[in-house]
């Protein structure tokens, strides 16, 4: 289909622009606060990034398949309260709760996938439903903020491994490596195909429904892990993960150059996008900017990052044979 044209004039991925932006901001931040250029400082930065990056990675898979998923905050809330209530009560609670949050995430994802792929509901709306249900479940498990996270989780996952590699960095590295391998698999390619044109994919014999189901399930598991990492950092449980976090997850994906219309982008960009958003918070804090300016900057940076991405897309389009529109969604692939 589009594969041939894509291979021919392979442009710089739009995540490259996001990467440059991220590096530039990081450089300014490190110049401004030289104390952050230590292992501890960098570990701290990665710790702050990893939750958003994990959630954004999960969402990226769903968006690549041309669906949307709002359930991340719900699943993160559930896994956060699970870790906060169980990890200290059970022997080797750290591992039991890890398995449990993965299972919970998978289940939520499978429900989403079933609703979207097999009942053919619109993903934006039905994942809104599962998000609200998950938030309800989180409130049932833990009515008010509290609980306690096992010290093992809190210390190990926020510290360094072997004294040199930040654990959060290791996790991010695993995610990126896993993605680089995964996107070359049959399933990985199928996700791009389904996201680009699901009708054509079905006609070529791809299992569109199965692919979507798996994508949602993987995303759910990623949200579960994000909740686990969130617990490691906060050390406590909070059934109310704010909805603005959801918007940041989407922003990270979009800044990373993944087209919200599906079929274009990747997890590396989303990790970079999460990095941009985190470094920006740190930078604005380091510069002593008041909270309301932080909001304004957040908005401006989002737009600027997307504009950069669009520029790269325009450059790419010049090299590419335009074969026509693929989808109905309005501004999906400009």
């Amino acid at each position, binding site marked *: 289909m589009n594969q041939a044209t894509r291979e021919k004039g392979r442009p710089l991925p739009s995540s490259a622009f996001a990467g440059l932006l991220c590096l530039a901001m990081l450089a300014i931040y490190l110049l401004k606060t030289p104390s952050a250029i230590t292992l501890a400082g960098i570990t701290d930065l990665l710790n702050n990034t990893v939750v958003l990056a994990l959630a954004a990675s999960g969402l990226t898979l769903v968006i690549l398949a041309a669906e949307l998923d709002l359930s991340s905050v719900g699943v993160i809330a559930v896994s956060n309260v699970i870790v906060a209530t169980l990890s200290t009560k059970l022997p080797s609670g750290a591992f039991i709760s890890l398995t449990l949050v993965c299972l919970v995430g998978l289940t939520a994802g499978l429900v989403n996938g079933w609703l979207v792929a097999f009942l053919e509901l619109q993903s934006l709306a039905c994942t809104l439903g599962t998000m609200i249900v998950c938030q309800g479940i989180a409130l049932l498990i833990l009515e008010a903020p509290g609980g306690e996270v096992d010290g093992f989780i809190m210390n190990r996952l926020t510290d360094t491994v072997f004294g040199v590699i930040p654990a959060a960095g290791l996790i991010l590295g695993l995610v990126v490596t896993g993605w680089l391998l995964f996107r070359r698999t049959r399933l990985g390619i199928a996700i791009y195909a389904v996201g680009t044109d699901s009708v054509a994919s079905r006609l070529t014999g791809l299992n569109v429904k199965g692919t979507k189901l798996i994508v949602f399930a993987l995303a759910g598991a990623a949200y579960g892990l994000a909740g686990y990492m969130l617990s490691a950092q906060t050390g406590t449980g909070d059934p109310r993960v704010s909805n603005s976090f959801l918007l940041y997850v*989407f922003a990270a994906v979009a800044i990373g150059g993944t087209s919200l219309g599906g079929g274009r982008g990747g997890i590396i960009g989303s990790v970079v996008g999460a990095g941009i958003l985190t470094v920006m918070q740190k930078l604005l804090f380091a510069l002593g900017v008041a909270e309301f300016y932080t909001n*304004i900057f957040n908005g401006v940076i989002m737009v600027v990052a997307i504009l950069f991405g669009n520029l790269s897309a325009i450059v790419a389009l010049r090299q590419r044979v335009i074969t026509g529109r693929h989808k109905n969604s309005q501004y999906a692939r400009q």
Partner: protein
Amino acid sequence: MDSESRSVNPGVVALKPETITAFLVLLSAVLMMLVMKLLNPTFGSIEQIAAILTTSIFLVVASYGQGLVILLGGIDLSIGVVMSIAGMMIAGLTNGSNEALIWALPVTLLSCIAIGLVNGLGVAFLKIPPFIMTLAVGTAFFGVALGMTAGSSQRTVAPALQVLMSARISGIPIPIVLICGFLIAGSLLQGRTATGRKLYAIGSSIAAARVVGLPIEALTVAAYAMSGLCASFAGMLLAGYSSSATLDMGDPFLMPTIAAVVIGGARVTGGKGLYFGTFAGAIFLSSLSTIITVLSLSQGWRNIIQGGIIIIALILQTKQWYLFSMVNRRLTGKRPLYSVLPQNSESQL
């Protein structure tokens, strides 16, 4: 409304599936209330129904703008912030005096339209995905409002607005009259004017709309501006209802506006949906949240029921639509008319 469209436009098949959807959604809202009445006989007095309708006005008005934007295949995530800003502005500018309302009202409306314009310009000309553009604009203007007001308005809303939300005309609360007027005006604008039909055309196929020569950019900007306008109306009414304003009072309405549009039968990717459907979705969601509040349940169970019912409503709506369109096609041999433009579509905005 439906009978009228049937007689005027002979090309429309006897019953639009979207209209059926909307009626079913309304019916299920009524059923929900009847079940509550059976379970709890004290529930469901006329007063309570009137209260439900009164509080539904915010969602009914705000989701109209969301519906227009979704019709184009976009989305507006700044509605919550715009509602808050409108409420804060009207409270801050009037400061409890009715005289100030004369200039405060247009200033508030224009400011919120301006926010909508920024959204529209970014989406139409800078080609930024609507999801990000509206999110970024919402975040940025939230920052601006936070910087100017420190979070909550210390001033009271003009009494006239408060009266508007509580007074009655010959026994009927004014908000209910407003809802009816808004429903008629909104439906006519969306479904019966050339501009409205062009939005359907753009949402159905932007490439076809471009070939036909529709002013895509201008209409996109107009839709987002309209969304800002509706959100500011909703925000001012909300401020009048609660007689004060805070900077987070609009937030709980953002997600329900999207849910209302989709439950009402619209397609998120654009080109399909009636305002009557969105209206039904808004009434459904408002009565759902009122009923859930009446049930003495913990917040967790309320969320689970609310989310579950949204999903069930979506399943019923989707499946019902499939069944209906199948039967309809077999009976009439026609496809539901949606992407077909009326003849007067050439006239400019």
